[in-house]
């Protein structure tokens, strides 16, 4: 009963030993059926979401097939819809976000789990949890009024002057665009990486560290060559989790990405993402095919996050079980 992994501890023996009628008389059977109804509705709602997305995108699925994912024309006037620019935008902004958030988040997690005294670690974790609770529209607000001007006036010119020979950092500095959206996303997903990675690192058995230290390694060597590799799978899980969040993030991205469907080599270029095109155009979409194409984008997004979340959960589970088995 102490561990949460024990499944359904108390059901069997009490229920099974009495007859159905006895249970009905005491109200147990009614309680079971009523709560079952609520539990089943969770499954029902989840299935209904999949059904809605699938049914809601019949027209474009039949008309465009898989070409929907490969073509880059988005022209509501001529009923031509291709999702490529949005998929591109979602992938690029998420990649930028992970590029920044992964080193920073894992570094911070190492500090919290390995270095900081337990009290400081818990206090900082409390602030990290609060940071994870900040709604995305607030990040968007700060993005528009702080990050965008700073990007336009300081960071993008600086990148252009130093690394401008790389196509990634070419073109006019608007402030809005892929890079800015990626940075705002990075700030948003860092708390998730820190929280999960810290838990995973804390679950690494103590004797692993002691063995490394006893063999004469420095504190950092024991951390980087023993503890982190031990927790590798779980940390990967935390990254996938962060990626799933970044892919599905809507408001903050919509507010700083520029909302122009474009595929460009430059990170300074304004673009669009799956979530933000839905947010911007859904209420204005005229015509069935237009609306349904947006719903199909939602389906694509759903499938992406579904796969990533599944992978993340497996990875985290594998590591934490291995950790506790050794402890």
């Amino acid at each position: 009963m102490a561990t949460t992994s024990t499944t359904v501890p108390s059901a069997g023996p009490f229920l099974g030993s009495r007859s159905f009628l006895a249970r009905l008389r005491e109200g147990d059977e009614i309680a079971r059926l009523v709560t079952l109804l609520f539990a089943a509705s969770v499954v029902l709602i989840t299935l209904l979401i999949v059904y809605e997305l699938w049914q809601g995108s019949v027209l474009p699925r039949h008309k465009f097939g898989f070409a929907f994912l490969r073509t880059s024309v988005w022209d509501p006037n001529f009923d031509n819809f291709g999702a490529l620019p949005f998929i591109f935008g979602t992938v690029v902004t998420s990649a930028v976000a992970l590029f920044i958030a992964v080193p920073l988040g894992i570094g911070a997690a190492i500090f919290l789990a390995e270095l900081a005294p337990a009290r400081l670690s818990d206090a900082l974790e409390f602030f990290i949890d609060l940071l994870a609770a900040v709604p995305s529209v607030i990040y968007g607000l700060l993005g528009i009024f702080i990050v965008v001007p700073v990007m336009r006036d300081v960071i993008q010119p600086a990148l252009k002057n130093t690394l401008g020979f790389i196509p990634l950092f070419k073109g006019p500095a608007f402030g809005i665009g892929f890079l800015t959206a990626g940075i705002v996303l990075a700030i948003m997903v860092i708390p998730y990486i820190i929280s999960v990675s810290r838990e995973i690192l804390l679950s690494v058995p103590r004797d692993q560290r002691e063995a490394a230290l006893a063999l004469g390694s420095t504190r950092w060597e024991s951390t980087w060559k023993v503890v982190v590799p031990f927790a590798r799978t779980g940390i990967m899980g935390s990254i996938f989790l962060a990626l799933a969040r970044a892919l599905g993030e809507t408001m903050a991205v919509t507010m700083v990405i520029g909302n122009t469907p474009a595929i460009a080599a430059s990170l300074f270029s304004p673009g669009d993402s799956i979530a933000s095109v839905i947010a911007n155009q859904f209420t204005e979409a005229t015509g069935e095919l237009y609306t349904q194409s947006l719903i199909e984008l939602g389906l694509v997004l759903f499938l992406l996050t579904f796969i990533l979340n599944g992978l993340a959960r497996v990875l985290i589970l594998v590591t934490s079980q291995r950790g506790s088995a050794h402890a």
Partner: protein
Amino acid sequence: MNARLRWRKFVSNFMLTMTGVCALVSVAVLFFILGYLVYHGGASINWDFFTKLPAPVGESGGGMANAILGSAKLLLLATLFGVPIGFFGAIYLAEFSGSKVAFVVRYAADLLNGVPSIVIGIFAYGVAVQPFKHFSTFAGGFALGVMMIPITLRSTEQFLLGVPRTLREGAMALGASKWKTIATVVVPAAYRGILTAVLLAFARVAGETAPLLFTALGNRFWSNGWNEPTASLPVMIYNYALSPFEDWHRQAWAAGLVLLGLILVINIVARAILARGISVPRA
């Protein structure tokens, strides 16, 4: 050898310092956000913000009274819809179900938890807007409620499972039926945890914007009843921040401060409730 050891020690100290810097930067972001919102929002918040309707487009002044009420209505609906499903579903999982059913329900809840909020918006549009041919407060509350379900369900279940088996056995040995045991012993023993779970779920959806964009839509006036579109704080922040008017930007900051303040206070209260209670196994 000595030089090599010195180098290794240097690397060790350097890298460990860097991890400290990473932690500092990450936490500093929170204080930066808070500070900036208090600075900007605090300067623009006034009595009008809480009591007046939005001014006509282009005019300065006015407030967000309708959005504050709208958010309250939406959150009330969301709680009424999402919490019972999460709570009773969790009771079924923790007390009644066999492991196969439990696996399916847990899996569905985790899946639901991972669905991007904009997709929840599309879903709520298809279920609660399209059939009725108009946007409504109901639809918005429904969308937010769906998002509350998995958070409430999974954490409530954890806290119910954390109640010692001996408590259940004691009640049953005294002759209580199973549902009576649950209602009078198990749930009261876990109530702090359950309350925390509900509060955190509430705080999580209080700031959600994307599911409201095409369900509750928005409204520049009071929303009459529950069947009309309504303004809400998050959507107002979004619209005002993207507007070209200086005065609307000011009000977006004020709304941001109110919203973030509410969410952080609920979070802190929730954690305080839990910290004072009995120890529970960590999720």
